[in-house]
């Protein structure tokens, strides 16, 4: 019985990523088997939650024991221009008693009531987890029931962690939107220039650097999922004319199925980097014109692109000399890889490696075209290997997420957060300048030289020779003329170097009783 329930949870249509995969690879399926004792990374629940939680006016309720939500909430920097309900954490926090007595479903039902009464969310998303999947709680039934009873949408998301990886979780979230949300609201202001952005998280508010560009062109973002999204707008996503998919692995399956169901064409684009931002604007404009938008949209878009690109390049110019030739290790997956690689290569930076762990085959190909050497693209790296590469001095900076942050820092290599915890916005033209500026700030920080300089002693604390020569006797000319004016002379800057005469010290130390006085520096 348990087994059936869990199997049912996996009864999802074929993983959409497969579409982009080479025929030979398709057979492998989505989830690679993990090695016990040598695995790392999130689970399907993690992926599902990430994909939906920034829908800001909804409550996100996790049905399971504490750890799933309790150890992971409030850790992402998506910006909201409205409600803060999404930042709160909701979980049924199942106890042993709940599990033993099988009262999980009842508790879930009650929890939905409490939340809808107290916080008045636009909707409630309910996430299943390993334990509630294992014990067979029927969250579909509870959600349906609660929705009817409390008069708000309650959406089940089937996301037990053991189902697979974070990537699979993204897809499960997309399924939930398709099955329960999109198409359930018909807005009264549909226009021919409505678009949907999928897979944009508005981290550090960065989509707010892009949206005004679209506004200026008269392109209306019906909804950006999930960043700064409101539930009703997501529910109306089916009325848009074009879908742009930003984070390809996250929600491309959803885009494909929206095309199937409502005939909305989609494309994969990126707002990272100048060229990709421009290209995305272009494609949006062209597709909209194809779908009935005024033809001058294409020209206006080109004019905007020309102006904004010129301005951005002018602002980037001062960095070129500072950053050309710097070697970057990009350790993040998905669409960011090729966008960021392209952007930074345009400034003359080099890539010593790029993770393509979450990338589609198409992504990988783009990266390989950019990098020209396949060796640079890796599927993922064990911490130990990553540390070795960084410690070896291969890279001037690593761009990655928080998970590998401390590996870079412990190797004393500059690191920049380009994932969910970061506080700087990197999208659009302004965001590209900000990214380059942050890279420059990081690389040029004098802290690296200071922490890389070895201590003037060995691992046992014995002074190394290198050190001893640092000390010289305090300047007697100085001592002879201690007046202010004399000390104020220009060579002062040198005389401040710490100065001690090793011979003098040695002389005194020889008088030490019972001390191995002459061993200094080599004992």
């Amino acid at each position, binding site marked *: 019985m348990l087994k059936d329930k869990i199997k049912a949870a996996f009864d999802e249509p074929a993983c959409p990523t497969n579409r982009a995969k080479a025929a030979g690879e398709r057979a492998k399926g989505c989830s690679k088997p993990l090695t016990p004792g040598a695995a790392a990374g999130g689970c399907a629940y993690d992926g599902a939650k990430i994909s939906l939680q920034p829908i800001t006016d909804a409550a996100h309720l996790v049905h399971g024991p504490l750890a799933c939500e309790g150890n*992971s909430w409030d850790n992402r920097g998506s910006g909201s221009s409205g409600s803060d309900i999404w930042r709160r954490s909701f979980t049924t926090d199942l106890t042993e008693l709940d599990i033993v007595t099988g009262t999980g479903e009842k508790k879930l039902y009650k929890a939905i009531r409490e939340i809808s009464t107290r916080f008045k969310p636009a909707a409630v998303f309910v996430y299943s987890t390993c334990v509630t999947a294992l014990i067979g709680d029927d969250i579909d039934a509870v959600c349906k029931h609660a929705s009817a009873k409390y008069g708000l949408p309650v959406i089940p998301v089937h996301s037990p*962690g053991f189902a697979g990886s974070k990537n699979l979780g993204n897809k499960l979230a997309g399924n939930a939107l398709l099955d329960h949300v999109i198409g359930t609201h018909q807005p009264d202001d549909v226009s021919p220039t409505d678009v949907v952005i999928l897979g944009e998280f508005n981290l550090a508010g960065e989509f707010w650097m892009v949206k005004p560009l679209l506004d200026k062109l008269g392109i209306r973002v019906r909804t950006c999922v999930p960043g700064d999204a409101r539930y009703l707008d997501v529910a109306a996503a089916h009325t848009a004319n074009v879908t742009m998919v930003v984070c390809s692995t996250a929600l491309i399956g959803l885009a494909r199925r929206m095309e199937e169901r409502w005939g909305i064409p989609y494309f994969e684009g990126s707002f990272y980097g100048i060229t990709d931002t421009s290209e995305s604007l272009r494609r949006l404009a062209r597709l909209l014109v194809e779908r009935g938008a005024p033809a001058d949209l294409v020209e206006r878009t080109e004019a905007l692109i020309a102006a904004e690109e010129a301005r951005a390049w002018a602002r980037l110019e001062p960095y070129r000399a500072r950053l050309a030739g710097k070697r970057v290790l990009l350790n993040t997956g998905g669409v960011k890889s090729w966008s960021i690689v392209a952007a930074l290569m345009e400034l003359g930076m080099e890539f010593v490696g790029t993770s393509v762990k979450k990338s589609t085959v198409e992504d990988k190909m783009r990266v390989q075209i950019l990098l020209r050497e396949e060796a640079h693209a890796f599927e993922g790296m064990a911490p130990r290997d990553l540390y070795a590469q960084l410690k070896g001095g291969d890279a001037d900076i690593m761009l990655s997420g928080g998970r590998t942050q401390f590996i870079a820092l412990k190797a*004393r290599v500059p690191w920049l957060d380009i994932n969910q915890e970061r506080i700087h916005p990197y999208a659009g033209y302004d965001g590209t300048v900000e990214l380059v500026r942050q890279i420059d700030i990081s690389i040029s920080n004098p802290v690296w030289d200071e922490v890389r300089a070895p201590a003037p002693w060995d691992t046992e604390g014995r002074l190394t020779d290198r050190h001893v020569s640092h000390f010289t006797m305090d300047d007697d000319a100085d001592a002879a003329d201690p007046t202010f004016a004399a000390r104020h002379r220009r060579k002062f800057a040198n005389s401040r170097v710490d100065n001690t005469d090793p011979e003098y010290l040695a002389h005194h130390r020889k008088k030490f009783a019972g001390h191995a006085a002459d061993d200094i520096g080599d004992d």
Partner: protein
Amino acid sequence: MTDALSKVTHTQKAATVNPLKSSQPLGAALAFLGVANAMPLFHGTQGCTSFALVLIGRHYKEVIPIQTTAMDEVAAILGGADHLEEAILNLKKRTNPALIGVCTTALVETRGEDFAGELKLIHERRGNELAGTEIVLAQTPDFAGSIEEGWSKATTAIIEGVVPKGETRVSPERINILPGSHLTVADLEAIRDTVEAFGLEPTILPDISGSLDGKVAERWIPTSNGGVAVEDIRTMGGAVHTIAIGEQMRRPAEALKARTKVPYTLFDTLTGLAATDRFVALLAEISGRPVPARVRRARAQLEDAMLDGHFHFGGKRVAIAAEPDLLYAMARFFAGLGAEVSCAVSASGASPILEAVPAADVVVGDLDDFETRAEGCDLLVTHSHGRQASERLGIPLMHIGFPIFDRLGAQHRHTALYEGTRDLVFEVANIVQAHHVPRTPAELDPFRDHGDTHVGRPQTAAH
């Protein structure tokens, strides 16, 4: 300070809103990380491990070694013994740890396997391969307890797995310290210094001050880097005395006593003048030595800090949310300086120490219970997740406990003994002073509100 027992209530809610607690296996992992060259192993799915690992990393700003048995859907249904064995063998081969600390999670505990039996079988089958690595088991499902319980269980598991039964020759200078999970790296360093100042040799279990103190090594270390050595744990039966700190450590102290007859003294807190006096006096008694001048000077400095600082506590209303032992320690601290603990929320309800918290009520609940009850207080005291309540209520937040991810150096703050109490006094006084806003004519107008809440807050005796 009230000596009456406080009323402990559990909130009757179906939805936990803004959790206060972290999971039990996370607490167990922290304890295992306090053993040198150790590797915690979560028996569950990859995700459980990932969340714990990332959260601990955000607090300590470190690479955290925790591994997973990587349970998948098949194993979840058919049983995870193979995954457990494979994980242990893999870890042994790849990292050769001195100790593998198995922490069970909700998933495998829900299925309910005989983990101890499985481990025994693994040992029987693979004893040779695993030589030199202790394997201990802490059963820590997420559906019960919080960090404290996990920490307590893991410490107990280490004692029961590593310390041999029976009495042994006593080294009169050796002393065991069993610190609760609420003590910081700096606290452990200070405890060690103080114990050593009496000529005693402490064995601290767990000792995260060695492993989670934030330092840069010159090579990659896949296990915990520092902590108490397994060989030192093995000889804890030879100590003259055990000092347990926090009610959560009664269980391991009892376990150690049961195995080795080493008696113990339990300190409910080491924060505060009187508590530290008792601790120092015990060390003087055990060692037969006078209290060193340095310790006495620290005491005089604390007294002065209390005198200078008490102005910023008296009449203030404070809201505290934490795990039981930390809640108790902080509530005692605030109440002892004249503040009213008008809101006390505990992350878990199992500890008897809750009845001793100097507050009218102790609520076992979440940060939403906290936020609701903290309205009108002068200061919020909890971990980083309290930041939302602080923003919404407009009340300053003092960061304590775990996790602290939006501040640096949490592990280097002193919170125990004379110096730690002194630093806490300063910290509170400085938060209060930083948030002092002079009152406006409107706020002071006697006709503003001719009720009892005359000048913004109640002026009648609130005692």
